[in-house]
């Protein structure tokens, strides 16, 4: 490509050399190294989760088997599900995105490299915490969705569930931070010419997916915070014995849980949308439809959660609503499947291992999607939910779908990441064992479900056919295990002896292939001109370039300031967290109950005065920011001090309110009013407190004279956070107090 180099666009910052040694990996903020760390960590957990699965399959190989006790089996399926979802699928996709997104958009790194390192290190922390439960009285044994009240202390007596909640919180924070980073990276660091409409589809899907993460994860975080409070402070969110609702947990959990399904699928769609075109030698068929259908899936995914709850008895109108929305998701998903198939049609298909996995993905994901449609047909769900038919369905989506896509991506990008090709010979062996093993293990499970076998049973009676089909499934699972060993062997062998890859072994078209393999620390010195979705095709086929996408403009309106993007994304995710707390308050306080009530406990007028203080502090910080911009640093300092004072007065007022309630003998576990009131206002108070600390640091910097105009972004970000905290209070005040005045 040297002859084309003269047309390349030079990037701004100079190159740095790669640090060496083990510690350099621990201390790294390089997105590529962090990406590799993600991949390696998830590989470890993948093997662990796989071993858990195989142990279950041994136990289920024969009827009335006694290899595992029920308690051990229950821990296994809980850990297997939790591990695969939170420690493997999500982080492996985030890891791939981490490695690839900056390269694919021609950036030098992620928008916030240190935040990126933090996001990664939270993953081993969360994984460690989850597995530590094994040493602390036993792993959680409540299933990965931890239905209340089984997960409450009365029924889950060991600390397993506590480790589970803490681990998920930590992992959730890590995923949200990584997604905020990805959003900011994609919105602010694209190379010149790479407009939103020219983004590779993988980047598109990661972009949409990141929004799903920041909107869905806080719902889970809020729910598990409530569960944790239930378990440790004796409150009653999900404890029916004291008026709590077992069904509310299901609503909250699946409000996260269904978007989560797409969080685990969209990046896989992205991988497939890169791999299939390259190996069919055709551009993706209908880029706009594929991109737009992703947005449609993301939006719809928030309106379908109760299809996990058709067996709850929510009533036909509710069931029908969620049946309709769930079926609608089939449309954008179908668009993708047809687009991938049509891309292959008329191409010149090269059946590399990557492509084989992609093709198998296409068929297996379609099977999983179609069995998914049967679940949207409510009466069918009433029969097959909670059975092995369901287990088969979601393994077709998550293993036959997502994992096969990840394998395709691994074979596709491994040369870029390591500079060496994976062995195609071992790759084919890896593929065929995976294909046969997977389908043997899981296809028969459809039949087991139809025969009446419920999931999560540690054994089963010796009914006709059950033993045989289970044995077949177990054999398939072990073949799948062999396949993973082949993959590991391939990775190790290829790292040492693999064929050197060169910059672009697949003649691919996106920017990551425009740099060396592996890329240098700074990724690129130059990027090619970008006029279409396939800049490297244009470079290699100057006689026949792709049509220019979206006019000649090299920039669209979507280059934003990264701190602003970061803080706004953060506040969106915080907003969802508070929304859940507010919904819980409304849910439990809309009917009469015994014990303390808002009317008997709260004084809306006095709290109203403190509310005015908090609102006034929004005004003062806004003025402070203006003064700073105008260069009036003294006024800035004093307005900042006034903001802190007003915030402190608010906290003081809240403390007085709390003390008054405590003195009347009411505690957080007194009844559901107390539970929801203290949780909601407590979390808000915590946010005010954190805001005050941030403001104090700002003020300290300002009075130390260490404040330059260049830091205005920091002030703006903290200002936005402070406005957000005030806005949340305004809603909380209306929900809790204003209702009392009306």
């Amino acid at each position: 490509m040297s002859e084309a180099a003269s047309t390349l666009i030079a990037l701004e910052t100079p190159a740095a050399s790669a640090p060496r040694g083990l510690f350099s990996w621990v201390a790294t903020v390089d997105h590529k190294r962090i990406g590799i760390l993600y991949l390696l960590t998830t590989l470890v957990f993948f093997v662990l989760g796989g071993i858990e699965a195989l142990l279950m399959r041994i136990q289920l190989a024969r009827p009335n088997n006694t290899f595992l006790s029920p308690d051990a089996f229950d821990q296994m399926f809980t850990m297997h599900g939790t591990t695969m979802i939170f420690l493997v699928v999500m982080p492996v996709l985030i890891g791939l995105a981490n490695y690839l997104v900056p390269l694919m958009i021609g950036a030098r790194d992620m928008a916030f490299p240190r935040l990126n390192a933090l996001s990664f290190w939270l993953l081993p922390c969360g994984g460690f915490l989850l597995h530590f439960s094994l040493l602390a009285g036993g792993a959680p044994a409540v299933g990965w969705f931890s239905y209340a009240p089984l997960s409450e202390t009365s029924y889950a007596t060991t600390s397993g569930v506590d480790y589970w909640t803490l681990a998920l919180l930590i992992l959730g924070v890590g995923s949200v931070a990584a997604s905020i980073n990805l959003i900011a990276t994609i919105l602010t660091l694209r190379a010149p010419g790479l407009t939103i409409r020219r983004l590779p589809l993988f980047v598109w899907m990661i972009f949409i997916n990141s929004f799903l993460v920041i909107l869905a994860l806080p719902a889970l975080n809020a729910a598990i915070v409530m569960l944790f409070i239930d378990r440790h402070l004796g409150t009653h969110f999900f404890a029916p014995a004291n008026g709590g609702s077992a069904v509310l947990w299901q609503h909250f959990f699946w409000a996260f849980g269904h978007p989560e399904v797409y969080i685990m699928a969209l990046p896989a769609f992205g991988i497939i949308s890169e791999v299939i075109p390259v190996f069919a030698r055709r551009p993706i068929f209908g880029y706009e439809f594929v991109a737009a259908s992703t947005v449609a899936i993301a939006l719809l995914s928030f309106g379908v959660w109760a299809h996990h709850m058709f067996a709850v008895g929510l009533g036909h109108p509710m069931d029908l609503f969620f049946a309709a929305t769930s079926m609608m998701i089939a449309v954008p998903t179908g668009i993708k499947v047809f687009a991938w198939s049509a891309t292959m049609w008329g191409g010149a298909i090269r059946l590399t291992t990557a492509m084989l996995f992609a093709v198998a993905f296409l068929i297996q994901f379609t099977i999983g999607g179609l069995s998914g449609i049967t679940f949207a047909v409510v009466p069918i769900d009433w029969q097959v939910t909670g059975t092995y038919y369901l287990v088969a369905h979601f393994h077709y989506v998550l293993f036959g779908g997502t994992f096969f896509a990840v394998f395709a991506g691994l074979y596709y990008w491994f040369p870029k990441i390591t500079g060496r090709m994976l062995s195609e010979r071992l790759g084919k062996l890896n593929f065929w064992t995976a294909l046969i093993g997977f389908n043997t293990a899981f296809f028969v499970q459809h039949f087991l479900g139809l025969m009446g076998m419920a999931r999560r049973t540690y054994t089963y009676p010796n009914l006709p056919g059950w033993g045989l089909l289970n044995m077949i499934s177990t054999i398939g699972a072990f073949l799948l295990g062999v396949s993973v060993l082949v993959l590991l062997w391939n990775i190790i062998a290829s790292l040492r002896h693999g064929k050197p890859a060169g910059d672009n072994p697949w003649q691919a078209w996106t920017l990551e292939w425009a740099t060396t393999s592996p890329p240098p620390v700074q990724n690129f010195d130059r990027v090619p001109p970008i006029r279409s979705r396939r800049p490297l095709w244009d470079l290699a086929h100057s006689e026949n370039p792709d049509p220019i996408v979206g006019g000649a403009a090299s920039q669209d309106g979507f280059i934003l300031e990264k701190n602003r993007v970061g803080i706004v994304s953060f506040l969106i995710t915080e907003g969802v967290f508070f929304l859940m707390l507010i919904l819980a308050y409304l849910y439990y306080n809309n009917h009469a109950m015994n014990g303390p009530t808002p009317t008997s406990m709260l004084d809306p007028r006095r709290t109203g005065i403190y509310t005015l203080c908090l609102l006034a502090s929004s005004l003062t910080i806004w003025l402070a920011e203006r003064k700073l911009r105008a260069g009036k640093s003294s006024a800035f300092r004093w307005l900042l001090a006034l903001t802190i004072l007003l915030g402190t007065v608010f906290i003081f007022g809240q403390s007085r309110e709390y003390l008054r309630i405590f003195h009347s003998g009411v505690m957080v576990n007194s009844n559901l009013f107390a539970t929801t009131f203290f949780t909601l206002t407590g979390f808000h108070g915590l946010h005010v407190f954190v805001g005050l600390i941030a403001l104090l640091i700002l003020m300290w910097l300002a009075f130390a004279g260490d404040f330059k105009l260049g830091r205005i972004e920091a002030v703006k970000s903290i200002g936005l956070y402070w406005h957000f905290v005030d806005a949340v209070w305004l809603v909380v005040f209306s929900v809790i107090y204003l209702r009392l005045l009306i």
Partner: protein
Amino acid sequence: MSASFSPIFDNASPQAAAISNLFEVVLVICGVILLIVTGMVGISLIRFRHRPGSAEPPSYFGNRKLEIIWTIGPILIVIWLFALTARGMRQSDPPANRQPDLIVIGHQWWWEARYPQTGVVTANEIHIPAGRKWLVRLESTDVIHDFWVPALARKIQVIPGQTNHIWLEASLPGTYDGTCAEYCGAGHTWMRFSVIAESPAAFDAWLGGQEKPPAIPATDPAQAGLKIFQTMTCINCHSLRGVSMATNAAPDLTHLASRIILGAGVLSNTETNLFRWLKNPQEFKPGCFMPDLKLTDAQAGTLTSYLETLQ
């Protein structure tokens, strides 16, 4: 579908039949879609392979008309499926419109069945008259369970703090397997039950038998067994009409010997199995709330003799 293959398809009630008919239609629709996709992919894999030395295929970016077709087509299918769904729901799950004929209460890990008209209480075995549509009310005393008899009806969660209803009907006499279908703790696997549908006459005879108090034990071992039942901790959990008025923490044993299963499905109810069960329930149903009482063989033997009189 072969007769013994799937209780969902080889069903025995109009409600379950409505679901399986719907299921068959949907499976055909899904099968056709799968064939189309597999066909497209398969033909591509055969016809459009890369040949060494051949040039790059022409770039082709899409076809708006085709894309609109495969958007509209699925939308129409979805509308059709939605209509089928609404109809299927009405047929398979009609609204509850009267007092329940039967109350089923889920416990960790067994089912309590109460006949409100007669006061009969039994466990893990539900008798219904064949050909009659019974309304069942479902409650839970602890965690969420799920009541599922695939050959007869939809499944429905059994939720603490909420009552649910379903219709239970068997067109023909027979024994139909049921199970808990929502994971509910260590004993979830053995939370099975049987629905026994009998001709109305046989059902009435059964109900009459259950209404009678249990016979006073006549033989010596049985009388000794009764003493053990009263002096050991049995009566703390098990009620037995005329002997023990415990809460419903454990199955009512009034007519234990008339039932076909023990431990909610873990053993068939034979004299030998009952003896083994009494010796150590934990061996058969690990985690269940009935402890190993360390009965001697003699104690377990007399207790078995007594319990076997509870026809």
